[in-house]
């Protein structure tokens, strides 16, 4: 397994090996699936759309619908204007969405297709919408694309009427439907009136009923996106993902925003709950206090299994930082933090976490790849890996347990239904980590050391 990876780390200036990111459009497609009756549309060759649908379907084990402008060589030379017009007509005719959310690709970006002009030229049926965002694959990552698509919805739709609606706009970050559900539950418990954009719960975790519905019940409603402009405040969760759309809403409609890390672990969830309390002017409800107490109870009960265990965490920037902060809270050492998504902010935030908990010898890298992470591990081993499916080869090669968390997880089931966020998410993460470490202890120990009680 990964036998060709040398231990010695050599500098690479051009080649990426085993990436820890993918391209913008797939993130844009995921964001658009979180809008009710929305057809995500990929403006490029049909392979892009096909790959993204494949990936999202494999992660969520649910249909990921999307259409494509199906560029041919001609469209690539003469521009994709007529492909977009034909697409819009066919999509509204056949699939009957309320809104089409177009994102671009490296192809349409390189030829310089002017989507604003194309959409203005496109016939849009009454009461229907087309919005777009630019998602050149050669900038940023799928996280950037996710963020850009939310900006696209806001840019086209959100309006300030001058009368505030008393609601909190919530940008959940690039997380699973299970996380969005948990956030919504906490918002509900705290009595906050809110709109979440996007909201893939009820879409990418839609129930089995025996009747397929192309547009399941979930997703943010168009009128809610319009009304975002009247919200009292935006709460942008996962600042590296959600700050940009929050600032777009601020610029366009004057809605102030507050950024917070993803509510993963105790402190980040505390901050989330306190922000909700400040917003709703409601005291924190006992249900949440009880859950918090349960999580801390678990952390104390099992602290000796966590303590000083080293872990490598890879994946999307906000998710990696969130999990890192939780593992620090339970006394583990986040030795390596890697995201493929570019941006120095990730490294700075990681360093701030290391400093806060006084851990030494930890490394964080943005624009990193899993090949280099593997080389680091070969030089200095860790006790645990946390991240998506693509780390499983390293886990096997180095015989390190792997806890799957984040995106994409294409080799396991159920994960997308379950939260990492909130105190409940903390309990789940604690259980996943403990099971991985303790199963390993059970497997590796001498027979005479095999414990009945642990």
């Amino acid at each position, binding site marked *: 397994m990964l036998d060709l990876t040398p231990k010695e780390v050599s500098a690479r200036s051009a080649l990426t090996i085993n990436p820890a990111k993918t391209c913008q459009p797939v993130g844009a497609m995921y964001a658009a699936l979180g809008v009710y009756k929305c057809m995500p549309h990929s403006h490029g060759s*049909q*392979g892009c759309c*096909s790959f993204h649908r494949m990936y999202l379907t494999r992660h969520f084990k649910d249909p990921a619908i999307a259409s494509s402008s*199906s560029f041919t060589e001609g469209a690539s030379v003469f521009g994709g204007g007529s492909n977009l017009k*034909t697409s819009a007509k*066919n999509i509204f005719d056949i699939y009957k969405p309320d809104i089409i959310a177009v994102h671009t690709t*490296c192809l349409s970006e390189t030829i310089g297709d002017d989507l604003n002009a194309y959409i203005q030229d496109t016939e849009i049926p009454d009461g229907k919408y087309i919005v777009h965002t630019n998602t050149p694959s050669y900038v940023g990552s799928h996280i950037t694309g996710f963020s850009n698509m939310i900006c696209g919805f806001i840019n086209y739709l959100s309006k300030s009427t001058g009368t505030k609606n008393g609601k909190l706009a919530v940008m959940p970050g690039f997380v699973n439907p299970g996380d969005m559900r948990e956030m919504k539950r906490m918002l509900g418990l705290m009595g906050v009136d809110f709109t979440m954009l996007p909201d893939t719960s009820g879409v990418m975790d839609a129930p089995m*009923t025996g*009747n397929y519905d192309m547009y399941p019940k979930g997703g943010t409603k168009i009128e809610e996106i319009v009304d975002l402009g009247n919200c009292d405040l935006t709460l942008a969760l996962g600042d590296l993902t959600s700050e940009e759309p929050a600032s777009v809403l601020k610029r366009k409609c004057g809605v102030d925003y507050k950024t917070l890390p993803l509510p993963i672990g105790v402190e980040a969830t505390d901050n989330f709950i306190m922000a909700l309390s400040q917003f709703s002017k409601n005291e924190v409800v006992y249900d949440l206090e009880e859950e918090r107490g349960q999580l801390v109870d678990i952390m104390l009960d099992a602290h000796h299994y966590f303590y000083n265990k080293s872990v490598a965490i890879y994946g999307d920037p906000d998710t990696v930082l969130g999990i890192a902060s939780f593992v620090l809270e339970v006394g583990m050492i986040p030795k390596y933090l890697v995201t493929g998504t570019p941006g120095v902010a990730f490294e700075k935030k990681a360093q701030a976490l290391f400093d806060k908990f006084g851990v030494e010898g930890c490394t964080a890298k943005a624009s990193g790849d899993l090949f280099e992470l593997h080389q680091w591990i070969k030089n200095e081993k860790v006790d645990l890996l946390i991240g998506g499916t693509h780390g499983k080869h390293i886990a096997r090669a180095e015989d390190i347990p792997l806890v799957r968390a984040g995106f994409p997880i294409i080799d396991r089931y159920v994960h997308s239904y379950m939260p990492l966020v909130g105190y409940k998410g903390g309990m789940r993460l604690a259980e996943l980590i403990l099971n991985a470490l303790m199963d390993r202890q059970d497997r590796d120990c001498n027979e005479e050391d095999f414990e009945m009680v642990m």
Partner: protein
Amino acid sequence: MNSREKLLDKYSARVYKNRKDHIIEITEEPKEISANTRAIPGIMTNRGCCYAGCKGVVLAPLKDVAIIVHGPIGCSFYTWGTRRHKAKGDANTKNFLEYCFSTDMQESDIVFGGEKKLRQSIKEVVELFNPASVMICSTCPVGLIGDDIHAIAAESEELYGIKVLAFSCEGYKGVSQSGGHHIANNGLIKHVIGTGDRATTKYSINILGEYNIGGDGWEISRILKRIGYDIVSVMTGDGSYEELKSAHVADLNVVQCHRSINYIAEMLKIKYGTDWIKVNFIGMKSTIQSLRDMAKFFGDEELINRTEEVIADEMGSIEEDIDYYKGKLKGKTAALFVGGSRAHHYQILLKDLGVSTVLAGYEFAHRDDYEGRDVIPSIKEDADSKNIESITVKPVDNKFKVYLTPERYEELKDQIPLNEYKGMMVDMEKGSIVTDDLNHFETEELLKLLKPDIFLSGIKDKYVAQKNGVLSRQLHSYDYSGPYAGFKGAVNFARDITMGIYTPAWGYVKAPWKRQPTLEGTMGGAV
């Protein structure tokens, strides 16, 4: 109205005009189908792109090749470990299948050109891994900005002394994956096949268009080796650059997936004289037929007898299992939508199990995959197909050899599918529907109209069918099961379909309160 008419009736005039020739009902008379034409923008096609066909399908399984995807990160990421073409390395063969190499082009590379980054990437891959060969696959923006990947390949080949090939397989070329297969075929025949000189023994063959999904190629090879065949190369499942170099020395090519590799089969025939026959190792009857056809080609009594022995033994070992599953599956109906030749191949296996096919279609086929190769001369070239280079090859004097005497050739050509493929439709029953480039809307509608028990397709529509209450299994990835080829594979397939149909979970789809009233009480005033 029949099912076809009911379906088409729902389209607007313009879409109707396009789609009507892609959907046909099988009748006594042979019919022409429209295929390998552009997908309609906005219609949710299942098709991928040229890059997917070239890199993803044909080249990716070559285990000893470091394939650098030149472009932004996505395209390399999506073809990293996602197609289940299994491979094993050994002491002499490096296996790069666990690795994903990309130039991860950034905005500045798009503006100022990506050649420098590609050169440096090749240098880094060679220094780190010293692979047998490096192949470069370009993605959409590369063709647009005009990076000369072929010049860089030639220059690198000289610099590093290893084979470096470039494939201009930008996603916008052609109308589907099919263009990419062709581009990959051209590159391999031009630059790889014919450069080796492996010695052969009796009954030497290449297996073409077998990608070892779920280990199919290994299962096929196991049977063929039992019989005594010398497998020179497999294209390209668990294949290698090293092995491929000597593919021209084989006496016979057997073609499993017609669409993706028929170009190489044809060019090997012209260049080196090697005959090919169409085989199908999916299904028991078709596996037996293919083995007998191969034996007949070599015409050696020892081989023919050995073939029958192996068939009898293999059949004997699965009989009991197959009878059990037949009992479970008899009378069921299936719909298939796959690429390559699978929509054809699996019909034969399903029939073996008592399951009839009511709908079948290909994602990226040409007319010959449906109607047989006889129609090739009458296929009109359009602008899209002209954009994919068609190369002309000539016989190579010192390497050209023909196994069959002209007399024997004449005798055999009516008995076995010698350099011939009759297509899918000839094996289909009257009244069944054929749909080319089946799309999301048609999938939903046809599932409602035809009500198959099993829908065999890919990941994008799997859950659409399943959520509608129809069992759906992926025929691209076998839902991470397999192998499905050969005799033992047939049992695996039958088992997987059976467990899908009979899983108790189907019984819980409707909640009890949706089936019966839950509120109980007495009427007011009753005593």
